[in-house]
């Protein structure tokens, strides 16, 4: 999968400009923490211009100017983080808008003639004809024809996909291109509501709504801000009572240091970047809520075919019945499959060739090919000499040889059962009235899945495999893949039932699907990931769409969802822990002249009151850009138990959050003092 470059110069430049644009108070108001900082910035600006505005003061204009500048940068850094996070989505949306140029559509009139109209005039129900090389003007269902479609505009994948009328592969997306042949499409969306439009809006984050956890955290941060506001405001009369006069700019500096600006400044960037990471995996999440819910998933319901296994069964062994040699059964299987063009048939021929069997063309010249049908459930050849070669479902073959007067070998059943138990599909091979043996078709589990399921288990997520196979086969595959549970002989309604059952126990369920009959289950699940290759119904029911149509992506989305929450929690902890050091820097600085005994609290040994306050403030400002990489990439997430995760993050961001500012502030103080800046 293609990963877009993380940063480039253009993005950074754009973010710098946006950082200034976001200074608009109406925009800032949405972020209560940073809005308080902005108000403080304005007040210190006024105090820089008119230092004596609130009464006589001992501090110089230079000090006020320094506080003002640091505060301004604090706000700008936070804005920059947000702008940077938004930048990539915006750039992507811009490039998508370019592809979604205004195309002309050929509408099929009632009398069968064509009329050229602009794609923006198409309405639901219109029927259009699209020729090779043309862009499909709107989302719709193919009602006639078969074509290969280039979907690179959406997926970035250049290999065209085949779409045809009827079935699960009939939906096409506006903005994609017909690569060959032609199709007639019935339009299913009005202008402005197409998949492409939604996708642009989503990657751009235009309609980004705060997620439940984000709202909860914003509330907490707002209340912390309010608490510190109370602390600072009430400090003034208390100090006055003791005869200490506090400078307005110093009070603002302390307030800004104490309120959680680090997380407040990075919070929206974390959310946007999280969504953006999902997009980079080529998954389109309909809302941040869905990504967050992914982090909470308790149970994953996965289709066996295509998700856990490759889905195409391959021949892995030819098993003879007693009295038949291995060579004979291999040859018979080859004979039965030479004209079979299905992937299974080709895999049988390939395996036979590898085992050294060959059956040159002339030998079956003029043979009649017996195609597979749902009734007979077998296929094969009738040779010119009357020899009937068949392969197919074991009971069908048995029935077939009975009808020719033969009978099933005694060990056929046991061989068949062994294969079924091992998760394979047995195909019996017969030449005339004699059964030669069984072809062992195997569905292979995708490599690496077992490890990923083990990771999920460590994270506390249960995996359930859904398959149409019989219980025996299902059990074997389940064991091989390492899933926790399986549902065998599953019908679409079984999936919904399974989801509802889990949900009733209070669990959050995720599932993937592509077919129209998956749609209700996708809608029922808390996180439904639809494949882009699937039907429109499935895509509309789901709250995420995987543009690469790779169902295992769900695992990545879960990790991103968790990472998103962890990043917020970690930076909140870091932000609050920082306050301890800031108190020890600023409180003694404020009172030391009036109460020299408080020198004992100056545990960092900061050089002077001014440098202590400015150092704390500078630390507070520069920690924001320093943490931008963590906000953007997310805190490292490993699939381990919650306890281990908590311990790690508490040590790193809690204890680290206490220690780092002590070092940082001291360092800045030494620099300021060394350079004689204060």
């Amino acid at each position, binding site marked *: 999968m293609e990963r877009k470059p993380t940063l480039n110069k253009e993005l950074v430049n754009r973010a710098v400009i946006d950082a200034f644009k976001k200074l608009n108070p109406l925009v800032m108001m949405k972020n209560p923490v940073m809005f308080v900082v902005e108000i403080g910035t304005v007040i210190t600006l006024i105090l820089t211009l008119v230092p004596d505005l609130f009464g006589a003061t001992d501090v110089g204009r230079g000090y006020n100017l320094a506080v003002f500048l640091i505060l301004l940068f604090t706000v700008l850094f936070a804005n920059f983080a947000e702008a940077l996070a938004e930048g990539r989505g915006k750039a992507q949306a811009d490039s998508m808008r370019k592809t979604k140029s205004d195309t002309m559509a050929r509408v099929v009139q009632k009398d069968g003639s064509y009329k050229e109209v602009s794609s923006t005039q198409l309405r639901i129900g219109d029927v259009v004809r699209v020729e090779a090389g043309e862009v499909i003007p709107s989302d719709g269902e193919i009602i006639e024809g078969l074509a290969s479609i280039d979907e690179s505009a959406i997926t970035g994948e250049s290999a065209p996909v085949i779409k045809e009328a009827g079935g699960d592969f009939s939906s096409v997306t506006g903005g994609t291109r017909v690569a060959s042949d032609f199709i007639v499409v019935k339009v299913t969306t009005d202008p402005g509501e197409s998949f492409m439009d939604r996708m642009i809006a989503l990657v751009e984050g235009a309609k980004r709504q705060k997620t439940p956890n984000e709202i909860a955290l914003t509330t907490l941060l707002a209340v912390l801000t309010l608490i510190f506001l109370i602390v600072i405001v009430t400090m003034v009369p208390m100090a006055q009572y003791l005869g200490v006069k506090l400078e307005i700019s110093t009070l603002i500096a302390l307030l800004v240091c104490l309120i959680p600006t680090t997380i407040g400044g990075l919070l929206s960037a974390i959310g946007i970047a999280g969504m953006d990471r999902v997009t980079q995996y080529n998954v389109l999440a309909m809302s941040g809520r869905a990504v967050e819910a992914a*982090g909470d998933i308790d149970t994953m319901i996965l289709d066996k075919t295509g998700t856990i296994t490759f889905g195409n069964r391959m021949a892995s062994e030819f098993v003879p019945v007693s009295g038949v040699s291995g060579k004979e059964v291999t040859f018979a299987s080859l004979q039965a499959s030479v004209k079979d063009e299905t992937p299974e048939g080709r895999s049988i021929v390939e395996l036979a060739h590898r085992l050294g069997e060959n059956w040159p063309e002339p030998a079956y010249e003029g043979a009649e090919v017996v195609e597979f049908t749902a009734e007979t459930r077998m296929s094969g050849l009738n040779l010119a000499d009357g020899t009937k070669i068949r392969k197919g479902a074991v009971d069908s073959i048995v029935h077939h040889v009975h009808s020719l007067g033969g009978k099933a070998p005694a060990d056929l059943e046991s061989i068949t059962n062994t294969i079924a138990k091992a998760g394979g599909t047995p195909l019996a091979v017969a030449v005339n009235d004699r059964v030669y043996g069984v072809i062992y078709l195997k569905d292979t589990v995708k490599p690496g899945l077992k490890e990923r399921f083990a990771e999920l288990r460590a994270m506390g*997520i249960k995996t359930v495999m859904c398959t149409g196979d019989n219980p025996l086969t299902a059990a074997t595959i389940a064991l091989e893949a390492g899933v926790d549970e399986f549902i065998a002989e599953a019908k679409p309604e079984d999936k919904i039932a399974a989801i509802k059952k889990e949900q009733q126990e209070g669990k959050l369920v995720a599932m993937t699907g592509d077919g129209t009959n998956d749609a209700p289950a996708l809608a029922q699940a808390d996180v439904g990931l639809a494949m882009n290759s699937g039907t429109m119904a499935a895509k509309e029911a789901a709250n995420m769409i995987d543009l690469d149509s790779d169902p295992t992506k769900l695992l990545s989305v879960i990790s991103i969802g*968790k990472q998103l929450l962890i990043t917020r929690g970690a930076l909140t902890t870091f932000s609050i822990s920082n306050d301890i050091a800031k108190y020890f820097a600023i409180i003694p600085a404020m009172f030391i002249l009036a109460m020299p005994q408080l020198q004992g609290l100056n545990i960092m040994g900061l050089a002077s009151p001014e440098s202590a306050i400015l150092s704390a403030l500078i630390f507070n400002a520069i920690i924001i850009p320093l943490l931008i990489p963590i906000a953007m990439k997310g805190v490292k997430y490993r699939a381990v138990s919650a306890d281990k995760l908590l311990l790690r993050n508490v040590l790193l961001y809690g204890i680290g959050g206490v220690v780092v500012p002590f070092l940082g502030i001291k360092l800045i103080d030494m620099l300021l003092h060394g350079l004689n800046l204060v």
Partner: protein
Amino acid sequence: MGMGLLQVGIIVIIFLLLVKPMGIYLVKVFGNEESRLGKVFGPVERVIYRIMGVREQETMGWKKYAGAVLLVNFVMLILMYIVFRIQKYLPLNPDGLDNVPPGLAFNTAVSFITNTNWQAYSGENTLSYLSQMIAITFPMFTSAATGFAIAVAFIRGLIGRQDNLGNFYVDLTRTITRVLLPLSFVVAIVLVAQGVPQTLLGAVHATTLDGAGQTITRGLVASFESIKHLGTNGGGWFGTNAAHPFENPTPLSNVVHMVCMMLLPTALVYAFGLWVKDKRQGWALFTAMGLIFLVMLATVLYSEYRGVPAVQALGVQGNMEGKEVRLGASESALFTTVTTAATTGSVNNMHESLTPLGGFVPLAQMMLNNVFGGKGVGLLNGLLYLILSVFICGLMVGRTPEFLGKKIEGREVKLAAVAILIHPLIILAPTALALALPGSTASIANPGMHGLSEVLYAFASGAANNGSAFAGLGANTVFYNVAIGLVMLAGRYISIIMMLAIAGSLAVKRVVPVTSGTLRTNTPLFTGILIMIIVVIGALTFFPALVLGPIAEHMAAL
């Protein structure tokens, strides 16, 4: 000092030994299943329900429950106010005391209905026996029972499946009939045996050896003292509270007082664990509170034994100013820690006379307000911080935070945040106001850093519904009576409403099953984090005020 520490150690062990049996009993009291308790107390309670018109089986959602709490408390508040205002015309006033002035009557009524027991008056020369009985001793039962009922209701919400917090009237009645009354009765008898008076007769007039006349006030002290400590109330019959020889005559009565204070707040935390069917959860919270308690205790002990350097230079060891010699430094230090941990507010020594660091401890415990805390509400405050910790830690393990299977979401965080915000607001804002106004600063006996502590202590005591006084502050003025009265009301009812709202909101949530991805909140790791968050949030909010008061004073004395 060694003997003192040994005594303290033995008493702490007594606290611990009583936790489990009392906790088990509490769970039985509020359980629904028919038990022997029901057979014993049921008939009496049913008569009470009949008289009050309570339908025993009726259940209440959070709004109804909160409504009942407020209604009952409001009605009692009005009655108490009236009794104070007209006590002169009522019987049982052997010493002929006058009516209580309006400001003081308001302050006192609020003080006792909120379980604060802040006293801007001296009981023996302000209140008649009737007032002491029906407007002081009676609300000592009901306010403690109210706090208890709310804690029980909150726990029901936590483990509930629907918005059904129980029946407030039943909870209130049962707390009194099954817990407070029987215990008070036994303790009162013990106290009488120790020499605490219990009489309806008025003051005794005596002539001393050198011929001077002396009036020795007395009254229904033993019954008053027992519920005062069992219900973590704390108001004294006499102005000098538990330092008075009639309230606290012997070292043994001193121990009984302390055990009574700690008994129910500690047992309730254990009962919480039993209730939610997770004993480890109860112990985790208990450990967090217990460790903070021990650190606080050690600080007072160290500080009081060490004394003041300037006095030490004169050859005086330790700080005995404001302490009763018959009780000693260690028992006084323990009493100070216990009374502010359990937010009782009775004192056996004058907190103003503690060393600055020793005085810092009661202040800090009232600011935290959850080191076991007052009856019921202490547990609730502990759970409030727990919810906050769960929220922050839950995010750090990558899931929507959940506690006991219930998701902590926007609404809960909002309510919890308001409850957390209100405490510093009602301590710091009125302190600042009092220090800014010339009238209110005139009440300060020792201007300067110590004076700041006096005012800060008064409002912290009111906000935490503790009621102990730092002394030194002439608080019987209209300003302080009204301001502290309002602070007590806000400190009590706002957080109660918020917690009941949280309970109602949690009650209707689906229970999320526990997996290895779930944050475990009953581990030592989480307990450690909880302590950190309690201390850090408390320190961050009150650090500047504490620096200007006790910390600056302490550093100046070094």
